[in-house]
């Protein structure tokens, strides 16, 4: 509650799903489960690749257009990284259950639909990725994502990565960017007005949050400086801890 | 709207003039529709149900159909006529209460019919509710029993059902409360009641559904009256079945 931006994750905690993860960031908590590859219904079947089904379920109430929109963004993003051609005519099912949102706390208890769907998108993306990893789903690459809020103050635009709810709502423009491990831009969703110069700055800042600096050796894993709080390091550390836990019997 | 049952304590007669342990008029007919494998018409008071049974027949070859290799599957369809109640109402398919009743009837008969004799087949019971005045589940179960007998599906014993209530609400005049047998629609609205179905002459309870709040001490009396009512129902159904059997043997109505 106090340190809202700190991320935390638990892997493989649901026993019936093939893979699962709980991920909290920025006051949002999402539980994700992945099942697959499983049998697909005839109408959804694709002849040369796996169909990906993403289901986003809100903490309270039934999903509406906002959830459907988020599902379509997630679906097209995950299609790019999962090796779907390895599993033709199957289904990979990703279920994401939102359990905690900061909106609830501010409004007391009333169901308030967030003004924008972007706030929760990085958390959903990251949960989906961790759940896919937990399910040992073959991926071409992993990605990390960040939410950036831009405030205009005269000529200067200040950027905040992973803003609080207040920061998010007062922003002139908000952006969600996802990068692959190699630093390639995978997803960019923006809302609000901003200039092209702002965009360059946003891109640069998002890159620095998501992808480790050039010097860091992403292959070795050992050499990563623990002080640097980028998302890639976080994902790596979470997985390392999980693997170490699973192989604690192995000397 | 609360109903005035205060007169009960004066004459010990219920709204429709019955005493506590009396059933409503129960009429039953068997083999009412010639085209169906088995059929029946049953009315308990003003609750009237037509039942037809199809099967045992082959499972429709749909992908993912719930056919089971080792035994027959019982499936139940209930349709409530729009004119059955006081107010004309259209009931959609998604009614969870009806769905629950369908599941109840299906699982009750799944355990009583010799389904293992008919692997890879299905027995469909369709119930049409024509008039509605309490004891709905009980009437449906009784009608299904008759129709299944008519269809010639082997079963362990009759499933007979009835409802039992209690004159007390959950707190007031606990000592003086009487159990009641076979509640009608207006009594069901006001009093705690349960639906009980027994299998055979022993006190073997197959279905027991209660949706209202009642003290645990009341339950024994209600259950005892209900089980006793089921025996009465069984005798009535037995007479109908035997009469039908006799007619067939005489060759008068084959």
């Amino acid at each position, binding site marked *: 509650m106090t340190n809202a931006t700190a991320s935390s994750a638990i892997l493989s905690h649901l026993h019936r*799903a093939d893979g699962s993860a709980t991920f909290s960031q920025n006051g949002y908590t999402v539980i994700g489960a992945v099942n697959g590859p499983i049998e697909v219904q005839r109408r959804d079947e694709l002849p040369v690749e796996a169909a990906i089904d993403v289901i986003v379920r809100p903490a309270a109430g039934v999903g509406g257009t906002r959830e459907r929109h988020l599902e379509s963004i997630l679906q097209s993003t995950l299609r790019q990284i999962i090796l779907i051609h390895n599993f033709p005519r199957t289904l990979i099912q990703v279920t994401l259950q939102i359990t905690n949102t900061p909106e609830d706390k501010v409004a007391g208890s009333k169901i308030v639909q967030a003004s924008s769907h972007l706030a929760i998108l990085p958390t959903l993306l990251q949960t989906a990725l961790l759940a896919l990893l937990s399910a040992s789903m073959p991926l071409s690459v992993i990605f990390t994502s960040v939410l950036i809020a831009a405030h205009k103050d005269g000529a200067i635009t200040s950027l905040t990565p992973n803003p609080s709810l207040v920061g998010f709502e007062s922003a002139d423009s908000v952006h969600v960017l996802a990068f692959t491990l190699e630093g390639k831009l995978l997803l960019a969703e923006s809302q609000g007005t901003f200039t092209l110069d702002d965009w360059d700055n946003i891109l640069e800042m998002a890159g620095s949050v998501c992808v480790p600096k050039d010097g860091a050796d992403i292959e070795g894993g050992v050499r990563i400086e623990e002080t640097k709080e980028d998302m890639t390091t976080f994902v790596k550390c979470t997985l390392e801890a999980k693997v170490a836990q699973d192989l604690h019997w192995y000397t | 709207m609360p109903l005035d049952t205060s007169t009960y304590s004066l004459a010990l007669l219920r709204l429709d003039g019955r005493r506590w342990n009396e059933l409503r008029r129960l009429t039953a007919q068997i083999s009412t529709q010639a085209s169906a494998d088995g059929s029946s018409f049953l009315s308990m008071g003003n609750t009237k149900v037509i039942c037809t049974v199809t099967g045992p027949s082959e499972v429709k070859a749909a992908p993912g159909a719930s056919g089971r290799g080792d035994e027959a599957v019982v499936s139940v369809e209930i349709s409530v006529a729009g004119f059955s109640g006081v107010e004309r109402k259209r009931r959609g398919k998604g009614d969870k209460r009806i769905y629950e009743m369908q599941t109840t009837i299906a699982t009750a008969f799944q355990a009583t019919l010799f389904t293992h004799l008919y692997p890879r087949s299905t027995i469909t019971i369709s119930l049409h509710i024509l008039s509605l005045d309490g004891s709905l589940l009980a009437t449906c179960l009784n009608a299904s029993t008759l129709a299944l007998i008519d269809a010639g599906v082997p079963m362990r014993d009759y499933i007979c059902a009835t409802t039992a209530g209690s004159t007390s609400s959950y707190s007031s005049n606990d000592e003086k409360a009487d159990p009641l047998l076979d509640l009608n629609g207006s009594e069901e609205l006001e009093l705690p009641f349960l639906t009980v179905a027994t299998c055979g002459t022993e006190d073997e309870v197959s279905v027991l559904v209660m949706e209202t709040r009642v003290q645990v001490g009341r339950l024994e009396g209600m259950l005892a009256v209900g089980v006793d009512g089921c025996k009465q129902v069984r005798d009535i159904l037995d007479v109908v079945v035997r009469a039908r059997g006799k007619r067939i043997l005489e060759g008068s109505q084959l």
Partner: protein
Amino acid sequence: MPREVEPSLNEKQFFVKALEENLRIDGRAFDQYRELDLEFGDELGVTDVRLGKTRIHTHITAEVTTPFPDRPFDGLFTITSELSPMTSPFFEPNRPSTTEILLSRLLEKTLRRSGALDTESLCLIAGQKCWSIRADVHVLSHDGNLVDAACIGVLAALQHFRKPDTSTEGESVTVYTLAEREPVPLSLLHFPYCVTFSYYSSTVEEGETVTLLDATLLEEQLREGSATIGINRHGEVCQIAKLGGVPLDAVAFLGCVQIALVKVKEISVFVSKRLEEEAKKRDKGGLMAELSAENDRVS
């Protein structure tokens, strides 16, 4: 959609053999519940119940709406329970399965029809404004006995929940935020919990019925009958659902009701203990403590 896998013949036989020797596969006694764990979320009205490997997340929300025209003095209370593919890939979204419908019906009968929540207390202006309380039951992991666990989850969440305070002046209602006024708890009249029994008869010796409590998923798949009894700790039975299945002796059934009463008393004690612990944890240096200190200084 693929169908749920049925237990294999080996599993079945192993289970039956064990049952004949008065053993359950996980080593529990026949009338023993699995380990019950109840966690509360950061927000009010959020609970996470774990019963063995079954895990259920419940979320209570409240909003102001108009009451139904035929019930102008009653607020709204809805319970929604949907089994997502997270629980098991055999559940299809937007097409309710039998498990799901029966779960929601049982919760509805136990909690709503029995009047656990006083809906009249939710009325703000008769016929115009009332609170609508909504309980979302999310099943995260299904290892049997969803009904009992969901019931504990919803009731604990209802007790944990606080709705914002309101004041009514004539026709206008003011809803105060958490910072302005301390939110108020819901008015609950009684606490009915569910206890589910599973029956096995043909698997064991003739004429004998084995009764298990808190069945796991495997035990649920193999059972021949079940009964769910909703009862509160004062011995008021709110709901009984023995929906078909293997016939059971009437006297034995009354015994089950007595067992249910004992179990419900245990569950009630556990839930109130956890609620007390939670209240203590929240009380310390929470927002409420801050507010009361401010008031002292002003006066």
